[in-house]
Every structure is written in structure tokens, then in C-alpha cells.
């Protein structure tokens, strides 16, 4: 049994992926868009992690002597809001929260999507048809709107509901991609060998199908992160996400938009940071996709 598995593993393309991986890295490294994306992302990450430590102000610290002052005037770098809170610090905390939510929600959607898609694709037949019917059904709904309605009903500002709601959005496309891959993998000879050697279905899925799905899953996960960040900001903008005194980029943009006539910097700062963050993530995700799949 163990021997047979080793044989199958050797035949499985994922295990002989060494040179392919370094080729991928080489392709990625020389792409200007990948460099740009990685640079933007690294800068934002460093600032978000280290910036608040270096600042004298907290994200909820009021400064009654400097209410709503514009940027570059005195001690507050990017100005303050109507409560005298330092905008730069709030933006960095916001970026931190947005990144954390984006990554967590992506993990949630990857886990659900891969499990669902791999199971459907490998099972095939009627199970596959039913599971994919469900996915198609959800996909043909105004799914985002339903999630918005449910998030509102079940706990505005409750972070756990928020995580679950956002994670529940991303898994559908992931499940479809994974299922398509699994379906074509299931017909390959090394799977047949595993079946012939008596490996159980869960074992085949876990050991042979899932590792071979890594490429498309990584690409789509990379492209999911900005979508999740966007969705969280969207919910926060509608007042359904992160609540005061915490800040996410979306809730800062909401506050800024409400006062854009009198204090335009409150909109300009967070909006630029969000755009930059999404740009970096999208550039990197696109470059990754191009490097792994030159056809697309």
C-alpha cells in the first residue's frame, strides 16, 4: 500500500515540480508589473505594521487642540478628523484591519471552495451534478445582496458575522475552478493507479488531487484577496462593517465622503491608500496568473 502510494506520488506532476517552480519565480521576478505590485504591497505592509508603533498617537486618541486640521500643518502629518484624531495613524490601522480581513476571508473561501470543488470533481456523476447545481444556483442569485441583508440582520458591527459573511462570498468561483481541474485530474493515469492500489477516496483527494490543484488555487486566491478587501470596505462604507472607534479603509472613506466639502483630505487619504493597496494586489495577482498560465 505504502509502496503503491510512493509510486503514484512519483508519477504525480506536483511532486516533480521543482524546476517548474523556479521557472515560475524567474518569470515572475522579471515582470515589471510584478515588481511594481510587490513593491507597493511591501511598502504598505511595512507601514501598516511598523507605522503605528513609531507614531505618538493612537487610533482613538483625541487631540482637542487640533480639530480637523489639514495635512502638512504641524504635528499631524496627514491632518486630523473632526475629533482631532490623527489621520495617518487611523489610515495605517485601517490598512492593517483591511489586510487582516482580506487574508482571513480568503483563507475561509479557499478552504470551503477547495473542499467543495475537489469533492464534486472527484466524485463525478450525480454527486457532482447536485453540488454544482447548488453552486450555479447561488451564482445566479444576487448573492452579494443576500449576504448584505443577512449581515445587517444578524449583527451589524459583529466582526465574526462580518468575517463569515465576507468569506462566504468568495468560495463559489473557487469551487468552480477547483472542480474543473479536479474533473480533468480524475481522468489522469496516476489517479487511476491510486484507485487501483486501493487508496480510499478521501486519501486520493487529499494526497493526489489537492496538491495538483495548487497552481490555479494560488492564482485565484491571490486575486481573491483584493476582492475581499474591497467587499469589506464596501460593507463598511454602507455602515455595516467595522464600527467606531475602530477604522477600516472603507469606514474612513465613508466618513471622508460625508465631509468632503469642508475637509477633502479625509477622503483623499484613505481613498488613495485603498486604491494603492488594491492596485498592488491586483498587479501581483495578474502577474502570477500570467506567469503560471501564459495563455490567459
Amino acid at each position: 500500500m505504502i509502496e503503491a502510494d510512493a509510486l503514484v506520488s512519483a508519477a504525480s506532476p506536483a511532486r516533480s515540480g521543482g524546476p517548474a517552480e523556479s521557472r515560475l519565480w524567474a518569470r515572475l521576478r522579471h515582470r515589471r508589473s510584478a515588481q511594481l505590485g510587490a513593491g507597493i504591497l511591501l511598502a504598505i505592509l511595512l507601514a501598516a505594521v511598523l507605522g503605528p508603533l513609531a507614531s505618538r498617537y493612537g487610533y482613538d486618541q483625541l487631540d482637542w487642540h487640533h480639530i480637523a486640521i489639514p495635512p502638512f500643518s504641524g504635528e499631524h502629518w496627514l491632518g486630523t478628523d473632526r475629533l482631532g484624531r490623527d489621520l495617518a495613524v487611523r489610515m495605517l490601522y485601517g490598512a492593517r484591519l483591511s489586510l487582516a480581513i482580506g487574508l482571513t476571508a480568503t483563507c475561509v473561501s479557499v478552504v470551503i471552495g477547495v473542499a467543495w470543488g475537489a469533492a464534486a470533481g472527484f466524485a463525478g456523476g450525480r454527486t457532482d451534478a447536485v453540488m454544482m447545481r447548488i453552486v450555479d444556483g447561488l451564482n445566479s442569485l444576487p448573492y452579494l445582496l443576500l449576504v448584505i441583508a443577512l449581515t445587517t440582520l444578524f449583527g451589524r458591527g459583529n466582526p465574526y458575522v462580518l468575517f463569515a459573511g465576507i468569506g462566504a462570498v468568495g468560495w463559489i468561483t473557487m469551487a468552480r475552478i477547483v472542480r474543473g481541474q479536479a474533473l480533468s485530474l480524475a481522468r489522469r493515469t496516476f489517479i487511476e493507479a491510486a484507485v487501483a492500489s486501493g487508496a480510499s477516496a478521501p486519501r486520493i483527494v487529499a494526497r493526489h488531487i489537492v496538491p495538483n490543484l495548487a497552481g490555479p488555487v494560488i492564482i485565484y486566491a491571490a486575486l481573491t484577496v483584493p476582492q475581499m478587501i474591497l467587499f469589506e470596505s464596501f460593507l463598511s462604507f454602507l455602515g455595516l462593517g467595522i464600527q467606531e472607534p475602530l477604522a477600516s479603509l472603507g469606514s474612513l472613506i465613508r466618513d471622508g465622503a460625508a465631509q468632503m466639502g469642508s475637509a477633502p483630505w479625509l477622503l483623499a487619504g484613505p481613498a488613495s491608500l485603498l486604491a494603492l493597496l488594491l492596485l498592488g494586489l491586483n498587479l501581483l495577482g495578474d502577474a502570477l496568473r500570467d506567469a503560471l498560465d501564459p495563455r490567459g
Partner: protein
Amino acid sequence: MIAYALRRAAAVVPILFLIVTASFFAIRLAPGGPFEAPQALPPAVRANMEAVYGLDRPLAAQYVNYLGGLLHGRLGPSLSVRDVQVSELIAQGLPVSATLGLASLLVALLAGIPLGIAAALRRGRAVDHLATGVAVLALALPGFVVGPALALGFGVHLHWFAAGGWELDARHLVLPVATLALPTIAYVARLTRGSLLEVLRADYIRTARAKGLRERQVILRHALRPALLPVVSFLGPVVAAVLTGSLVVESVFGLPGTGRYLVEGAIDRDYPLVMGMVILYGALTLGANLAADLLHGWLDPRVRHD
């Protein structure tokens, strides 16, 4: 084709029924109620109100009652806006939302498809880089960033357009439509570019060129139709995206559309209003998917026989 159309249309009904059923019970599972805090009433009054709206009856009975009303086209009374039917609220807001949505959809297709074609035909040249750049930027600039920025720049400072409010003229329409259309333009352009590049590699395109057709004819007569198929089949998700986007755009520009009722209704626990919105948006999305399917079947006969 007619049999195909009927088959697809018939499949919509059970899905809509499932949406209605699932959301009816999901909404009721949520804590709180329409007459509880913050607009708390004395218990006797509350009991009375609940009796008036039938909320004191068993949930199953309410569900049957609601379905019966639906079959007669009744969405029920709003619980948060007194003495107004949900259908009246929708009738007031829908013209605004529909105008906004349709205009954005049209702009997105009319701008996105040519942009995608241009980028594919001049691959690697300036137009391509421009189109790709616009697409990447548009994906990084969500409506709630673009909307306020446009309102601030062109509305508050330059006074070219209105920064908000609703009238049926260019002054009030341009900014919201642009905000809503921008991500869709990027999406459509990307899709068109990718699929046209794919089609241009096909054998029959080489044949068309080999027999001496002019490039213009090769593109317009032979390549474009199959290249637009993916765009057509993405029409459903695009409509769903426009519906979702209109929530933000209506809130940014203060438009009296239907978008706000979804969130406001959910906050107020206005059950019939939330149900009405779910049904409205569900029917619109399913309708768009159906239209996309039919269009796809008409353009590509192979689809009809699966």
C-alpha cells in the same frame, strides 16, 4: 429555439421560489423585531401592532399567507413606513434605479467592447497598454472612491455637473452613470480582449485571411461573433454587479432609488420590505441570466442541445 427558451424560462420559477422561501425564514431567524428597540412601544401596543400585521400568528401560517399574497402580486405593507405598501415604495424608486442601471450597462458595453477590440488588434501597442492600464486602475478604484472623488472634483469645485440629487438631464446623470459604469467597462474590455485574441488564433480565421478577405471583414464577419460569446454569458454577473454597485452610487449621490431600502429595511426589521427587495433583485438577476442564456443560445446553436 422556442423549446430551448421555454425550458430555460421554466427553470427560473423553482429557483425564485427557493429564494423566497429561504429568505423568508432566514430573515425571521434574526434577533429583534419591527416593533422592538430602538422604537420600543408599550407591550400592549406592540401586541396590537403585531396582531394587525399578522406577526402574532405561527410562522408557517404567515409564510403560507405571504405566498398567497405573492401569487396575487401583493408584497404586503411596509412596517417602517406607515400606511405605505412595499409595492408603492418600489414603484417610486424603481424608475430612478432602472434608468441608472440601464444607462450604465449601455455605456459599459458601448465603451468596453470597442476598447477590448482595439486592445486585442493592437496587442502590445499603446492602445493595449492604455486599455490594460484603465482596466487595472478601474479595478483598484471602487465606486465608493470614484463617486465621491468625481462629485468633489466635477461637482463641488468645477460646477460642471450636479454633485448629487436626481433630475432626468445630463447634469445629474453623468457622474452617477460614469461611477457605476467604470468597473464594468474595465471588465467587459478585458473579457473582449482575451476572447478575441483566442479566436484570432483559430484555423477558420487563418482560412478567411488566406482566401484574401480584407482584415476588416475577417474581424467583423468572422471573429467578432464567437469572440463576444463570453461577454454575452457574463451579462448575468455584470447585471448583478451593477445592481450591487447601485447601492453605493445611490447612497453617494443621494438618489431616490430602491437601493437604500435593502439596508434600511434590514436595519428596521421591516420584513415585507426586505422580502420585496430580495424578490425584486432576485428576479432582475435571474431575468438577466435568462436573457444571457437565450442570447447565447441564439448566437451559438450548439448550446441549445445540451
